[in-house]
Structure formats: C-alpha cells, structure tokens
C-alpha cells in the first residue's frame, strides 16, 4: 500500500527532508552557542512523517501540530526565513516573535499552529473541523499528537466527538516510542494506538513512519476516505526521535544500541538508497543537494542573527485582545 515516487516526486520529498534535517541541526547549534534562547524540540529521525503528511494533502487542508512543530511547519509550506525569524524573536517572524519555537503558526499555508500543552491541540483541531463542516468546506484538519500525548483524556473526548459528529479530522499519531523519558511500552495500554480507533468507530491504521512513500500513500488514502465518507480517520505512524527530547537531554532512558538500530532506518537514508537503486539519484547528486541546502540555510541564518527588529512592548500589548489593548 505504498507508492513509488517518480524522480521528480522523490527529489522534492528528499529535498524537503534534507532541508528539515539541516534546519534542526542548525537550531541545535544555535541553541548550544546560546544564540537562541528558550527551549526546542527537534524532529530528527521523524522527517518521513512531516514530509509524508502535508505534501499528500490538498494545500487548503489544515494542520494543527505540537511542541515538536518545526518539520510540520516547513512541510506545510512556511519558508525557512519566516521560521528562523520567529526563533530569533524578530518582528517579521511567523508570529512576530511572540510564539517562538514551540508555537509556529502559518495561516497562509493553512497551518493553524500548535498547542505545547501536549494533546490539547487535538480538540482545537477537531473544532476547526467542526467549523469546516458547518461551512460546507471539502477540506479536512490533521490533528498531530504523540504517543505520550495519547494518554491525555482530551484526545479520547475529541475522537468521540469527531465520530458522533462525522467530522473531517485526520488524527495523526506520531509514535516515536517516547514521551520525554517515558517509553510507550510502559505508558500506553495497547501495542498500537491505532487500535483505539475501534473504541470510537473510527477507521484506523498503523504504518511505517520512517518510509516517506508509505506515509504519503497512507495520508492520501485517509484523506480520500475522510472526504468521501465524511468520517474521521486515525493514522498511526511508527517512527523514532533520533534527537534528544529537548536541549540538554542525556538520553539515559534508552540505549545507544537502540539508537544505532533506528539510525539504520533513518528516513533520509531509506529514501536516498531507494532513489539510487531506481537510478533517480547519484551519491554526487545527494551531496550537491545537501550542500546547496546548507548554503542557503547558513546564509539566511547569518543574516537574521544580526537583526534586532523586535516588536515594542506596546505593539505586543495590542495583541492581547482582538479589540486591541491589554485590558
């Protein structure tokens, strides 16, 4: 139930995944050198999920993501420049420096933003789907959540509502085996979170989240089902966070052997090797692509790092209420 990308599709997907990987590494470096502040959650190792989901949607379908939102935001269409500007707290950032790394939002590309209160975003996404349905839209909403968040009651409440009201929601569980230090095997009562769909009469399926072609095909199918049947769908993608949970994670809750085993299934490596085998890519092409992406990223980061265009306190205040002002 996978599809085989043609050369053009493959290159597009690979480029996106490389861009995401390099972006995360850049963020990691900027944090370690204290050029960026706050906290950050990298999705290194999970590129096949974000590169497989949004590109398989209608551009006017919505997504709503989590604290681990960089890759999803990039894949839905935000520019590296707009994203990095937000990380630097600049006034030209995605939310003018008010949101930061855990709260990337991009309405232009139908990215409704995040909740960093893990799990809570799933209800918000379900509400967006309710409104899309009420207004006769054919679009759907993807509600991302993790294996950790799957233990929040609100997700179960949202699935039940989506089911009884026939809402166009794609519940997308990004199962990367851990919520911070907690392994899903100790925290989740079922082997497969997709199996919980049955409790809400929601169609569901588990797929390999490290294979972008598999994810892409599964999302296309799910989206078609949601539109044709007017029903929600639960898709579980099995992947692995190769990075730490957030900065300064010594990862004492898992073994280096486990990480090495998952590195063998690095989503970039899987796609790259497959494209080489198909004659769609050479090692040189890959290196060139990577170099090109790195160069453009470095250039953007360098120019933004020097900027200091911040909102004033009064400007920030004006966003507390839609009617302006803070009281």
């Amino acid at each position, binding site marked *: 139930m996978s599809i085989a990308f043609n050369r053009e599709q493959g290159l597009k997907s690979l480029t996106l995944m490389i861009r995401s990987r390099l972006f995360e590494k850049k963020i990691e470096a900027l944090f370690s050198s204290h050029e960026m502040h*706050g906290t950050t959650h990298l999705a290194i190792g999970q590129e096949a999920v974000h590169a497989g989901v949004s590109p398989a949607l209608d551009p006017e379908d919505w997504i709503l993501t989590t604290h681990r939102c960089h890759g999803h935001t990039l894949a839905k269409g935000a520019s590296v420049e707009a994203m990095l500007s937000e990380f630097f707290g600049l006034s030209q950032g995605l939310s003018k420096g008010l949101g930061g*790394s855990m*709260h990337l939002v991009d309405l232009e590309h139908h990215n409704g933003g995040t909740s*960093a209160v893990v799990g809570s975003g799933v209800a918000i996404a379900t509400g967006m789907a309710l409104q899309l349905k009420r207004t006769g839209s054919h679009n759907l909403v993807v509600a991302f959540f993790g294996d*950790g968040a799957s233990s929040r009651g609100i997700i179960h409440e949202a699935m039940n509502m989506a089911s009884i009201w026939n809402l166009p929601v794609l519940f997308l569980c990004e199962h990367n085996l851990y919520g*911070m230090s*907690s392994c899903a095997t100790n925290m*989740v009562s079922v082997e497969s979170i997709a199996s919980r769909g049955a409790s809400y009469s929601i169609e569901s399926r588990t797929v390999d989240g490290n294979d972008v072609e598999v994810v892409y095909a599964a999302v296309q199918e799910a989206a078609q089902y949601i539109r044709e049947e007017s029903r929600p769908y639960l898709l579980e993608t099995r992947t692995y966070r190769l990075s730490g949970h957030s900065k300064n994670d010594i990862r004492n*809750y898992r073994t280096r052997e486990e990480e090495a085993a998952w590195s063998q299934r690095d989503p970039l490596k899987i796609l790259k090797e497959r494209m080489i085998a198909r004659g769609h890519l050479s090692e040189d092409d890959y290196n060139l692509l990577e170099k090109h992406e790195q160069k453009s990223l470095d250039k953007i980061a360098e120019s933004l790092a020097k900027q200091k265009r911040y909102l004033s306190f009064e400007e920030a205040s004006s966003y507390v209420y839609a009617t302006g002002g803070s009281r």
Partner: protein
Amino acid sequence: MKKLSYREAIREAMIEEMARDEQVVIIGEDVGCYGGCFKVTTGLLERFGTHQVIETPVSEEGLVGVAVGAAMLGMRPVVEIMYGDFSTLAADPLINHAAKTHFMTAGQFSVPLVYRTPMGSGTGAAAQHTQSLEALFTNIPGLKVVYPATPIDAKGLLKSAIRDPDPVIFLEHKVYGTESVIPEGEFTIPLGLADIKRQGKDVSIITYGKTVFTVLKAAAILEDTEVSVEIIDLRSLRPLDTPTILESVRKTGRAVVVHEAPQFGGFAGEVVAQIVGDEETFRALKAPVARVCGKEMPTPFNKDLERQLPPSPQAIIEAVLALFPSAV
C-alpha cells in the same frame, strides 16, 4: 550548616520524608531516571524504588485524581506537575475534589496531598509554560497554598506540607540553582507564617516567590536613597499571615505589594484588602497602598519583551519613591 540549592533542598525534604514514612510517594511524569522536568527528583527512584516513586503517563487530570483517591486511603502523595500552567488540567481533582472531600464527608475523609509545580517566566518557554497561576488556588477554601523563595524555606515548608492532613499546593520558582545555607538535620517551618526578610522603618514591601529576590535588590538600592525598607516574604498565601503584615504596615505606614502574576485580580489585591480593611492599619497609612505586579499580557517568546513582564527592581523603586512625594 551547609549550602544547598533550592532544587537540592526540595529533594532533601522529599528524601527525609520518604525515608521516615513509606506512605510518602512521589507521583508524576518523568520523575524516575529523567529526574523530572527540572531535575528535582533525581535519584529518588534509584533510592526508593517503584513502591515510592510512581511514573505516570501524560495524564495530568487523571494522575492528580488518582493521587487524591490514594490519599483518601492513607497514601501521602507528593505530586509533581512539570509546569504550573498545566494546573488548569489538574484543576478538577484539586479544586472540585481534594479541596472539598474533608468538608463534604464531614471529616470522614481527608486528602493529605502535596501538589508541587513550578511557576513563572524568565525561561523563554513562551505563553503556555511561564504563567504564575497561584490565584487559581488561593480563592479555594480547603486548599492551602505555599510559595517558598529560598532553599531553607522550601525544605522546611515542604516537610510541613507533606505532614499536613490537608491538600497543599506547593509552588516553586524556576531559579532552582539559588543557594543558601541550611541547618543540618531535621527541621520544619510551619505553614501560614511569613518571614521578615529585612527590617525597616519607612515602607513595607510584601511579596513571595521569586520576586523576593527582586525586592531584596530594590531594597539594597533604596538604602542609598535613605529609604529603609522592611521586606515581608509571605511564604504562605493561604493561610495568610495577616498579623505580620498588619504589624509591619502599622509601623512603616506605607505598603507595596509585589508579585509576578498579572496585577488585575491577582493575589496582591487580597493583601491590599487585608491592609486597608483593618481600621488601625488603615489609619496608620501615610500613602495609598501600591502594587507592582506582572504586566497584563501572556508571556511573549521574545526575550526582550519577556524581560519586561515581571516587576523589575526599577519599577519597585519607583513605586516606593512615589509614596514619598517630598523625596521625588
């Protein structure tokens, strides 16, 4: 005496109480080998095992509810919630249940639970991880609320909170590295007592939590302008040590209340009401009671903007000087 950080002091209180009573059980997310979000529980699982350290799924409402139920049958749970902001999720078991169980059962059940969680900004973690939500809890009869600033108070108050038969909301600030000297061995600090951090005669500044340090800075600077500041660290918000506040304000005739939470509807309003509602204290006032609190805004991510949110020493100094018209 020995030097301990705020983090170590809290940990030491838990270790001593867990060793004293096996009913004292740590419950929370990632409180095992990860040591909790702010590394306060490091080493507890290794030392006490899963009988006294329970790691939970990401289920704030559920895990606090479970702790309430266990407490009703004799456990003395010390719940850790990673960020005070998630108190909104824990609010039902705390506010609708823990706070009311003793009352609604006419004393047949009690809920000896401690709810530990850190509050406050300054971390760059943006609007959903930086709030000061103590006022959610201070308006609830049946809950006790403490907010220690220093390591010594954190240790002494946490031990009292664990031994207390009622649910205690134990709020922490995030400057976990703050150090101070602490007496060796066993000690407790009773809930409900403020601490006069500094004696003074011209103005009383009343505060709690992290802003105690901001006020100390402001007071040191004010000393140069010959304003003598008395600092009251409330430590406990409910029960509130009203007598200590009133006595101080009667002496100085001026009061400034400081906290990081937004001013509108914040706990400072209660402190002001206690001051002006007491006739003798009201008559002793030489100036209106002032408040210096957080701005009316969710926490912005941008560092420069975030920094402008909580009370600064400068803002406190200005508020104090404004109470002395002739000196300005």
